């Protein structure tokens, strides 16, 4: 069983977790252009390499960030969302 380190609960079986997809930059829904909306909805980066994702430890309903390599599926790091700088490019 693959083990993932939950920042709140510690190392747990991967079956205790749910992935909620890549972290996106926030945007202003009122001012964004049509092409911006289109890009947000229909284009995904699908990067080969390390990406940031939202994950949840399901039994405690705790959401956190994991950095995962999409080629090797290795989980490089996990941390609290509070450690994610809002201004940083995040995917």
């Amino acid at each position, binding site marked *: *069983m693959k083990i993932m380190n939950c920042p709140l*609960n510690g190392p*747990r*079986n991967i*079956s205790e977790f749910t992935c909620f997809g890549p972290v996106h930059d926030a945007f202003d829904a009122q001012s964004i252009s049509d092409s911006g909306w289109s890009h947000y909805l229909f284009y995904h980066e699908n990067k080969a390499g390390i990406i940031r994702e939202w994950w949840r430890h399901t*039994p405690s309903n705790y959401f956190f960030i994991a950095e995962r390599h999409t080629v090797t599926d290795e989980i490089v790091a996990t941390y609290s969302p509070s450690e994610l700088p809002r201004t940083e490019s995040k995917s």
Partner: protein
Amino acid sequence: MAFLAAARRTPFGDVYAEFSEGETRSIDEASRQATVLFERKGGGPIDLRDLTRYGRFGVKGRGASDWLRSKGIAFPERINTLAPIASRTLDIVRLGAEDYLFLPQSVEQSASLSALRTEWEADGLPRKGFNAWREEVWAWFHISGTDVAELLAKTCPVDLNADRLPVRSVVQSRVAQMDCILARTDRAGNHGFDLFFDVASASFMMRSLRELGIG
């Protein structure tokens, strides 16, 4: 309304203690009804008690911590910890940043719990968390015995041995392939855990633990 309240029963047919209309049952009686999961030579029995009918109260969401502070209730600093509230004969379990569960220290004495619920309901604060309905959505078992950690190791990935997990520790993990909260309370006088999980799966949990005891 009284009829509806009286008709409410747990998955195993018990009347909820708060609506039992004078019917009283103590933990001693609950103890007599304990299911012995297995008994090993020299190890003693492992008992499973269904405490679902007894009162518990959960508050979660923004403002829950502030409400506790406003009432002078000290809550654990660390998440996944249980602490007694001495003045109220209650235990408080911190399950998240703004997620709290209150348990009576003695299951048949729910007056203090009811008083706390009434205080919370009557409070006019705009943000005081919301009622998590823990008495409705969770079943509550207590499993105990000298070898309880060994039994649960068959189905729970966390090391629950007494030297690794002291009393008042809380683990949010999986038991019988279901999300489950385990709080080490030792409430039956020996090594034991309160289990909280989806009430609709109470029968499945009971069957699973019995099978593990046999196997």
